[in-house]
């Protein structure tokens, strides 16, 4: 790995900030989806990517995976696995957004709250944001030194 890049990836302050930024973002993102799962299910339907039988299950489970991985990152409970879960979700979001961007399908992204418009004009911005989050998640995952403020460090 490039020396400068390695220094960034080994920086404990960056690791701490990345965990908190990702954690707060994911907890916030889960909030409205947990309160109004029916609205979130409709947004998932709007993506036009998932079979009907899975839509409700995704709407029920995904917000809690966001909430728990967000909490895990902030509290420092299994931070590496939490970062891996977050990056798995981000990869899913990036793929879903990209597919709909390519096929020009207009939809509500539903990223943070219901009714937030994610129409094609801003999908590029959403993608850039998710890619930045993904890099943050990667930093948390690859960080090899002692982490600040963790309950279960486990590595």
């Amino acid at each position, binding site marked *: 790995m490039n020396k400068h890049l390695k220094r960034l990836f080994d920086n404990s302050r960056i690791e701490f900030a990345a965990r908190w930024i990702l954690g707060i973002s994911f907890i916030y993102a889960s909030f409205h989806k*947990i*309160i*109004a*799962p*029916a609205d979130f*299910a*409709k947004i998932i*339907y709007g993506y036009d990517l998932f079979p*009907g*039988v899975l*839509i*409700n*299950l995704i*709407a*029920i*489970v995904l*917000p*809690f*995976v966001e*909430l*728990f*991985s967000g909490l*895990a990152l902030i509290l420092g*409970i*299994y931070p*590496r*696995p*939490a970062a*891996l*879960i977050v990056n798995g979700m981000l990869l899913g979001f990036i793929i879903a957004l990209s597919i709909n961007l390519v096929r020009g399908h207009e939809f509500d992204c539903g990223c943070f709250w219901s009714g937030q418009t994610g129409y094609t004009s801003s999908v590029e911005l959403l993608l850039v944001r998710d890619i930045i989050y993904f890099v943050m998640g990667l930093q948390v995952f690859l960080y090899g030194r002692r982490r600040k403020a963790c309950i279960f460090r*486990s*590595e």
Partner: protein
Amino acid sequence: MGYKNTAREIVILLGLAVIAAFTVNYFSPTGISLVGQWDESKGIITANAKDDVVVVDLEIDDVKIAKQIYDIGKAVFVDARSREDYEDGHIKGAVSLPVGQFDESIDAFHDQYSTSSSIVIYCSGRTCEDSHRLAHLLLDEGYTNVTIMIDGYPGWGSEGYPIE
């Protein structure tokens, strides 16, 4: 740390999330069924939530039947969409009663149409719940003869039926 530990901890985190998700969904007043109705050919799409507004009994699922009611000329067609959508185009002769402005509009509506009027509500089709929300509000106001044309304005327009 080995991959085994990472995998184990992922399973723990995901397991807790899944247990919490189904527990909260079970007890939440806004919880949804495990399977929703996402086939537009079978009716209006819905997550089948506990607080769901969709009432199948009120639905007219064939736009041709709605046209027959329209042709008899005794029913009032009510547009539940926003005022802007109504002004952009609506079923000929329909009355605008946006569900979001119900409180402001209901008195004027009441003055013009008695609670025994035959009412057919529509919105934007099978992905739209506004007609059902409006139906509940009108039923609460004492209207007894309320139906919903679930194909909405797009379904009506695609048949070439009168619009303005």
